[in-house]
C-alpha cells in the first residue's frame, strides 16, 4: 500500500487574540485518497475554514499552525519553505471559497486572473495559457468562453462566478481541492449544478476533494467519508452512509434529526438546543456538554477517541443502534 495522498495528524491551529492565545482547532486527523471525497461538516464557527486554510498554509500571523502534521504525498507541508509551498498552492492543491462575489478581483479581467494562475506554475506562452483558460471555462459549463474571457467578474452571475473560480482551481489538474462551502451563497438550483460540475470533474481527474459545508444533506450524495466537527475537534468520522444512517455522537445525531427530510410534514423541525460555544470560552471536558441530553458527570473530562468498525468517535455515551434517530 502506498501512502495516502493526504494524511492529517493531530493538527492544531492557534490565534493570538486580545484575550490571549486561542486554540481554534485541535487534534484534527483524517486521511484522503486519490479520487475520494471527504465531507467536513459542522456549524458555523466550528473550525472548518481554519482547517482548510491550515492545509493551504494560509494561516497568517498572529495565527499559527502550532502542532501536528500535514502529510501530502508523504511530505509534511508544515516543514516546507514558503517558496515550495507556493509552488504547490493553486497547482497541486487548490481551494474554492465560499462567496463567489468576493473571491475574484473586481478590477481584473477573467483572462488576466486565469492566465496568471497558469504562468505562476508553468513556463508556457501567454497564447497557450489563454487557450487553456478558455478550455477550462468551457469545461465548467460557461457558454461562449472565448468572449467571456474578456469580461470582468461583475458581468457574471453568482453561480457563473463560482464556475470561474472552479475553472481556476482546476487549471493545473490538482491532486486535492478544498472546497469551502462553495454553494452556501448560491440558490438551490445553482447549488445542485455546481455540485454536479465539481463531482464530475473530480471523478474524471481522480482529484481528492474536501467538501466543507454546514449542510449534512449536501454531503449524503457526494462524499465517501464524513468528518463532523464541533468546537474545533472532529467528534465523529466515518463512512458517509454509516454515519448518516446510524449517527453515534449526540451532536451528529442532533444534526441529522434536524434535517427537514427527517421530519414529518407539518411538524416543527427538531433543533439542537443552545448555541455553539465561543471558542475562547469552551466548557470544561466535552465541549458539547451544555447542549447534550446524555451528559453525565463523566463528561466533565475530555472524552477520548474511540474506534469501532472504521468509525472514530469522541463521546462517553454514544447513541446506540437501537435508539431511533
Amino acid at each position: 500500500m502506498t501512502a495516502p495522498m493526504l494524511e492529517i495528524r493531530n493538527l492544531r491551529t492557534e490565534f493570538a487574540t486580545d484575550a490571549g492565545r486561542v486554540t481554534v482547532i485541535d487534534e484534527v486527523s483524517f486521511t484522503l485518497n486519490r479520487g475520494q471525497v471527504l465531507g467536513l461538516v459542522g456549524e458555523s464557527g466550528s473550525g472548518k475554514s481554519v482547517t482548510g486554510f491550515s492545509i493551504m498554509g494560509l494561516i497568517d500571523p498572529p495565527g499559527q499552525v502550532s502542532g501536528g502534521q500535514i502529510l501530502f504525498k508523504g511530505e509534511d507541508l508544515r516543514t516546507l519553505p514558503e517558496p515550495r509551498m507556493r509552488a504547490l498552492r493553486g497547482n497541486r492543491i487548490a481551494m474554492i471559497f465560499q462567496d463567489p462575489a468576493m473571491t475574484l478581483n473586481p478590477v481584473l479581467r477573467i483572462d488576466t486572473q486565469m492566465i496568471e494562475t497558469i504562468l505562476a506554475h508553468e513556463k508556457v506562452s501567454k497564447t497557450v495559457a489563454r487557450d487553456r483558460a478558455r478550455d477550462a471555462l468551457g469545461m465548467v459549463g460557461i457558454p461562449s468562453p472565448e468572449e467571456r474571457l474578456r469580461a470582468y467578474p461583475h458581468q457574471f452571475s453568482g453561480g457563473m462566478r463560482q464556475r470561474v473560480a472552479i475553472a481556476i482551481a482546476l487549471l493545473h489538474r490538482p491532486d486535492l481541492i478544498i472546497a469551502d462551502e462553495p454553494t452556501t451563497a448560491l440558490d438551490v438550483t445553482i447549488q445542485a449544478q455546481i455540485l454536479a460540475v465539481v463531482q464530475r470533474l473530480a471523478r474524471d481527474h481522480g482529484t481528492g476533494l474536501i467538501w466543507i459545508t454546514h449542510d449534512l444533506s449536501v454531503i449524503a450524495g457526494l462524499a465517501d467519508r464524513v468528518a463532523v466537527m464541533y468546537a474545533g475537534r472532529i467528534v465523529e468520522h466515518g463512512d458517509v452512509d454509516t454515519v448518516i444512517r446510524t449517527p453515534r455522537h449526540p451532536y451528529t445525531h442532533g444534526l441529522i434529526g434536524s434535517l427537514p427530510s427527517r421530519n414529518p410534514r407539518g411538524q416543527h423541525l427538531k433543533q439542537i438546543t443552545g448555541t455553539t460555544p465561543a471558542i475562547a470560552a469552551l466548557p470544561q471536558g466535552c465541549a458539547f456538554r451544555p447542549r447534550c441530553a446524555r451528559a453525565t458527570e463523566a463528561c466533565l473530562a475530555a472524552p477520548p477517541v474511540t474506534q469501532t468498525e472504521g468509525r472514530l468517535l469522541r463521546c462517553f455515551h454514544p447513541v446506540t443502534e437501537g435508539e431511533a434517530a
Partner: protein
Amino acid sequence: MTLWIFQRLLQAALVALAMAALLFLALQLIGSPVETLLPAEATHEERLRLIRDLGLDQPLHIQFLMFLKGMVQGNLGVSYVFKEPAVALILSRLPATLELALFAVLLSLIIGLPLGLIAGRRPHSLTAQTIMTGSILGFSLPIFWVGILLIMIFSVWLGWLPSSGRGQTVMVLGVGWSFLTWDGLRHLILPAFSLSLFNISMVTRLTESGVREAMSSEYVKFARAKGLAPRRILTVHVLKNVMIPVVTVVGLDIGTTIAFSVVTETIFAWPGMGKIIIDSIAALDRPVIVAYLMLVVLMFVLINLVVDILYRLLDPRIRLQGE
C-alpha cells in the same frame, strides 16, 4: 458614454456660469473701480468718460451680459498696473504655475504610493508606524512654515538648492519650462516639495488604508491560494484596486494645489499666477483678479470632468453600468 460626457459638459458649463454670476456679484459689493483709476486731480468730464468707457452707466443686467460676453471672448479688460490685457497676462504666467502644481502632484505619487504600500503591507511594523506618524506631520505643518524651513536648511545652511525664481528655462511650444534644464529642475525642487507635502501625506494615508483593506480581502486570499508570488499580488491585485481612490482624490486635488501655490510662489518668488494675483490684490487690479478667478474656476471644472472620466476608465464596475 458619449451621452454621459455631453451631460457632464453641460453641467460644467452651468457651474462656470454660476461662478461667473457669483464673481460679478462680488465685484458689485467691492464697489466701483473708478476711484482707484482716476488721478486725484481728474475733472468731472474725465470721470464721466471713464464711467461710460467701463460701461458702468448701464443697468446691472446689461453689465452682467457684457461681463459674460467679455468672458466668452476672452476679454476681461486691461490690467490697470501692467497696461496689458488681463487674460493674456494671466495666461502668460499659467505655465509656471501649472509646472509647479503638476510637478508637486507627481512628487506626491512618486513618494506617497511607495510609502503607503510599505506601510499598508506590514501595518504593525515600526517602519509603518514611522511613516504614518510622519504623514500626520505632513498634514498639519503650515505650508509657508515648511517653505521657510526648507529654504533655511537647503539654501541657507547647506547651500545645495536655490531658493527663488525659475532658473534657466527652455522654450517649448512658445512657453518657457524649467523642468527641462538642470538649473530649472534645481529651482523647481524646493517649491514643488513644499507644495506637495500635504498631497504626499494624503496619498500615503489613502494608499495605506487601501492596501490594508485589500490585503485582508477575499480576492487577495484567493490570489494567494492560486500560488501567485507576493510581488504580483501587491503590484497587480492590490495596487489596481488602491489606484482608484488615489487617482480620484489626487486628480481632484490638482485644483486645490494650484490655489495653494499662491503661498508657495510668494515664498519662493516663483513667477506664476499666484505671485501676480497677490500683487494684483494689493494694487486692486480688478481685471487681473477677475481673469485669475475665472481661469481657476474653469480649471477646476475641467479637472473634475477629466477625473470623472478617468475614474470610469479605471473601475470596470462603474464603466459598464453607464452603458
